[in-house]
């Protein structure tokens, strides 16, 4: 989908056109869903939160000032919902006791490798998980992440380094175990 066409659809959806909004859901569902899976490491929760994020977006789309920022605006919505869900989960089950339902995709060549990565990512802090997902999965630059997460760019740099080192440590532990 070329940019101009996309911005036209965003503009239409902003004006209350439900058909245009459905096109946007189709275009961004993967992005939002992947982010939710990475944050929550739980299939069903991720589907719920991704759906909730789009419903929320539908009702607050009129407050989006810049159509060009739709993607980051959408990620911000789902990120906040994921953090709320994680807080609720921690409250319900006791701190640090999140369920870690493994995500096994039958299409993947090596499901064991995937399971290990999911588990390792899920054991990182929320901030570390978020920064890895924003950079490596969503493809945002440091400056954009700093703006989205509302921290200085230097913090993004150090946080991403710390997150990668923590993930490396977790993966090494998984290999040994």
């Amino acid at each position: 989908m070329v940019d101009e066409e996309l911005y036209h659809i965003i503009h239409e959806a902003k004006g209350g056109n439900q058909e245009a909004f459905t096109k946007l859901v189709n275009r961004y569902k993967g992005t939002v869903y992947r982010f939710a899976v990475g944050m929550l490491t739980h299939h069903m929760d991720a589907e719920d939160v991704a759906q909730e994020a789009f419903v929320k977006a539908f009702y607050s789309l009129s407050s989006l000032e810049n159509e060009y920022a739709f993607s980051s605006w959408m990620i911000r919505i789902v990120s906040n919902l994921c953090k709320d869900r994680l807080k609720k989960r921690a409250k319900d089950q006791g701190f640090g006791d999140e369920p870690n339902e493994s995500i096994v995709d039958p299409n993947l060549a090596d499901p064991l490798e995937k399971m290990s990565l999911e588990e390792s990512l899920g054991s990182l802090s929320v901030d570390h998980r978020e920064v890895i997902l924003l950079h490596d999965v969503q493809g945002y630059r440091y400056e954009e992440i700093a703006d989205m997460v509302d921290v200085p760019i230097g913090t993004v740099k150090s946080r991403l380094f710390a997150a990668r080192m923590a993930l490396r440590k977790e993966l090494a532990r998984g290999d040994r175990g």
Partner: protein
Amino acid sequence: MSCHVEDQLSAYMDDELNEEERQQVETHLESCDSCQVLLEELFTIQSSVIHTFSQLQAPADFEIRVQQAIADREETPVFGKGWLFVPLMAFIALGLLWIATGAVFVKLVHGFLKLMIAMVYTASHLISGVPVLSGITVVLSLIIISTSVYSLRRLLQTSTS
């Protein structure tokens, strides 16, 4: 060996260093095996993350579910939350009652006050007009005050004893 550049490696692989920092890292990497190994590991982990998440697909009926969720919400009555409905209705009912009867109520209170003032005025006028009545009033007042003081003292003595 100069000090390691581990904390710069992450930004180096993301191409987020300035020219000077980038050259510094590259110079160090040429002569440091451990930093080279770490960089390779970080690249591998990044590729693994990208690969893993690129395989994930949202459910096929996702759009329909979002549409359904929006439709469900649209159908929910405005007062569906319940807790706000009752006090709001009570407030509206009281408001309507006030609008309907407010003017009559105010007139009633106003009329009653005027009547009381007129009665007090007439009584004082009547008393001052007849000298005997004034004397009787003063005596009666003194008796009432004395009786009240006496009763009050007895009451206080009874409650403290």
